[in-house]
């Protein structure tokens, strides 16, 4: 059967986006638009913006567009909240033909009015979708008027889907956040000795784990962006003295801007894997230059490492020599995963991202072994071809990659929205190993 063979033909236009380490010298091409007619795994600007802002728990997230854009994003991300639940509702202006012809501004204004009446929220995010970009509704004006009417913040998110890919959406979200956290004219916020934690969406409660570590070290977290955040906590963001950035893909821009506007320096950290977690905690402690913090940090690292060491060793013995393929959203996560796999004895034989940046691909290339395939914005045929060729036993990916891996008789880990256990910090490292083990070594594969 012809269709059953991995499509050997990689379209010519795609060949610049794929590299095998050690074989080709040129840099990998990335950060370009997808080719028309491919099964792209990529999402849109709106998707990126929504992912970043969605965890703001007490905001009304109103999607201005036809129904689908909001249906598909209704409570799909497992960001946990410690208080409000409003973000788990789906609000849409449900644009109809009439609105498309005559404009949707009035309907949008009505929707905001009605929602604000029902929900005493201080914050509304209004997301623009592709079609709004084309019919030319003046979101800015509608939001401004509504904000004045109700005395709350109504912030437009410029996330029309076709003006770029997911990264453009991250940027649109960061712009919205910047508007929110701007202190009122003339009232600068007094700096406190606290940090903001950027780029963690509190999937499966990951923010809480990290906050606990930091608390034990004697470091106060001002606010996390955006996991389990809310109007009040975000408003105080500018008083932090340091920003730590976990998911650089989505938050790098915000960190830069906050440095520029409020003089808050930032540093990249990663809490994925034992090695990165320890290094990151030390880096944060060092930034405070406080002996007490540093010694408490060492205590914590020693204790937590000891606690999980045996478990990790056990998993390592069981899984040594297995091969993994990685296909995730951002380059930063990909880099962390390579290290995390190394800790449990697994080699990465294929690695790709939807929106990785050039520097990140350079780091990836440095980290992986010769022969590892590296690819940008891959389609399923390419994933299949290289995973099979390289003999991967396991794929790390998102929703759409899962059944593909399964069909190939390959184990799978969701490192995205659908993750069920926290994968951050020391506990997360064990959870990660446990998840890898439970899928790699499940007896179901014996039936194929």
């Amino acid at each position, binding site marked *: *059967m*012809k*269709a059953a063979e991995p*499509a050997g*033909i990689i*379209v010519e236009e795609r060949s610049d986006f794929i590299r095998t380490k050690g074989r080709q010298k040129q840099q990998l091409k990335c950060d370009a*638009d*997808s080719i*028309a*007619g*491919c099964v*792209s*795994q990529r*999402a*849109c600007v709106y*998707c990126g913006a929504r992912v970043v802002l969605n965890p703001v728990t007490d905001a009304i997230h*109103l999607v201005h567009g*036809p*129904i*689908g*854009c*909001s*249906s*598909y994003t*209704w409570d799909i991300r497992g960001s946990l909240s410690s208080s409000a639940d409003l973000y*788990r*509702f*789906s*609000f*849409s*202006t*449900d644009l*109809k*033909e009439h609105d*498309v012809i005559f404009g949707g501004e009035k*309907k*949008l*204004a*009505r*929707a905001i009015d*009605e*929602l604000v009446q*029902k*929900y005493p929220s201080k914050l509304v995010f209004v997301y623009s*979708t*592709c079609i709004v*970009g*084309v019919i030319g509704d003046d979101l800015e004006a509608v939001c401004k008027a509504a904000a004045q009417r109700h005395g709350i913040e109504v912030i437009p998110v410029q996330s029309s*889907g*076709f003006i*770029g890919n997911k990264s453009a959406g991250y940027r649109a979200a960061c712009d919205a956040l910047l508007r929110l956290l701007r202190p009122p004219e003339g009232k600068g916020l007094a700096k406190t000795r606290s940090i903001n934690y950027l780029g963690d969406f509190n999937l499966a409660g990951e923010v809480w784990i990290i906050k606990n570590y930091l608390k034990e070290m004697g470091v106060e977290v001002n606010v996390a962006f955006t996991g389990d955040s809310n109007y009040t906590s975000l408003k105080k963001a500018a008083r932090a003295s340091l920003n730590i950035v976990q998911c650089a893909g989505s938050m790098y821009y915000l960190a830069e801007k906050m440095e520029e506007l409020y003089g808050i320096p930032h540093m990249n950290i990663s809490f994925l894997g034992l090695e990165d977690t320890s290094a990151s905690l030390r880096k944060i402690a060092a930034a405070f230059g406080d002996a007490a913090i540093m010694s408490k940090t060492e205590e914590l690292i020693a204790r937590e490492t000891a606690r999980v060491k045996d478990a990790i060793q056990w998993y390592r013995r069981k899984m040594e020599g297995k091969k993994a393929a990685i296909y995730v959203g951002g380059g930063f996560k990909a880099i962390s995963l390579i290290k995390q796999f190394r800790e449990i004895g697994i080699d990465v034989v294929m690695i790709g991202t939807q929106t990785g940046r050039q520097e990140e691909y350079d780091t990836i290339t440095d980290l992986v072994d010769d022969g590892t395939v590296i690819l940008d914005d891959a389609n*399923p*045929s390419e994933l299949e071809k290289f995973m099979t060729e390289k003999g991967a036993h396991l794929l790390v990916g998102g*929703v*759409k990659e899962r*059944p593909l891996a399964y*069909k*190939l008789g390959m184990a799978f880990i969701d490192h995205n929205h659908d993750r069920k256990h926290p994968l951050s910090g020391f506990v997360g490292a064990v959870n990660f190993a446990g998840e890898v083990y439970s899928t790699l070594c499940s007896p179901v594969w014996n*039936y*194929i």
Partner: protein
Amino acid sequence: MLDCTPKEIKERSGGMINPAKTCQPIGAMYAALGIHNCMPHSHGSQGCCSYHRMHLTRHFRDPVMATTSSFTEGASVFGGGANLKTSIKNVFAIYNPDIMAVHTTCLSETIGDDIPSLIKSAEIPEGKLVIHANTPSYQGSHITGFSNMTKGMVSYLSEATTDVKKEQVNIIPGFVNPGDMREIKKMAQMMGAKFIMFPDTSGVLDSPMTGQFNMYPRGGARVEAIRDAGNSKLTLALGTYASADAAIQLERKCRVPSLTLKTPIGVKATDEFLMTLRQAFAREIPGELEEERGQLVDIMVDTHYHFYGKRVAIFGDPDIIIALTEFVTGLGMKPVYVLTGTPGGTIGGPQDIFEKEIKSILEQAGVQGKAKASGDLFQLHQWIKNEPVDLLMGNTYGKYIARAEDIPFVRVGFPILDRSVQTYLPITGYRGAMRLLEMISNALLDRVDRDAADEDFELVM
């Protein structure tokens, strides 16, 4: 608690809260997957395509392939013609399907791309086909999209080539799971009827594990079969909303007479389906089907006291919930709220067709209830808050209401994102009705067990 729905009901005019529908293209994509060796193509930005594939993947737990025109800013200014032409070239060069089924998105519709003429002027390799359907989401719902693509199959493919119609029937199953399509085919086969089913996603989205990834699994309606549908002597459209348009188009284009029936859920609707086949082919209902029906009725009798008088709220896609409403009234239940997000009328025509149909089922059963098309789950939740029900039936999104109000919940319809296996098993036909009975009574009785005081906790129920 996860409950942000206020009890007080106010007029609303500014959109939807917690929708009970989604957009047209996903329905078109699902329909297109029901053609063998077909690549669905989304003409718009890549985000839409990505969402539709993701959503279908979550429901079916199988790979969902579809390509996209990947619009960028240029396309939104100059139109997406170039993107579509490149796409057609690339899709055949890279993925080599027999047929490509293009649907539009809100964006390409708003820009106003003229798909038919773009297809005409595109370079399509010898022997390959490109069909299309317009699927703007600011009209209708995913059901409309399914219907439009199914109609598109007829418009592009079906042909009347024989003078005398063949002894065969077309069956258009509607937006149901592959498990249902299998059940409906099984029944037709048992009736000894020669039939053509399209679209048919069985064997595509419930394909078996082989250790191989097939971009085009073995299932799906063959293009030749859809072509030959123009020579059939009858079309059965199962469900007005998802299937009737294609049947009417067949009638118009190829003079194949058509009948629109309910989705065969429950005894009555299944009876009607089989009776129609019996009449058309002058066949007897085979013993096995008689036996299945007898078993079903036996179960209904054995357990009717579990169901009697129970107030139930049903939401989902119109064809499914119309038949479901009829079925549960037959059990003595009271479907007091029946709601769909899909508009309940025709474009430019009357808008209350759905409500009228439900009302007439309720009237016959002597039930006072509310019916609503173009509704949302916020509204349903408010109704329930004001006058509670004993059972909720609908897709996964019902779980918020079920939890907030602490009501037993039976998952039926699309999408179901938090449970598995249901796409493989039917709710249609007599076997499907048995399954529904099991689901409903388990939900009700598990609740009785959970809530029973020690002294009331019973072994035999």
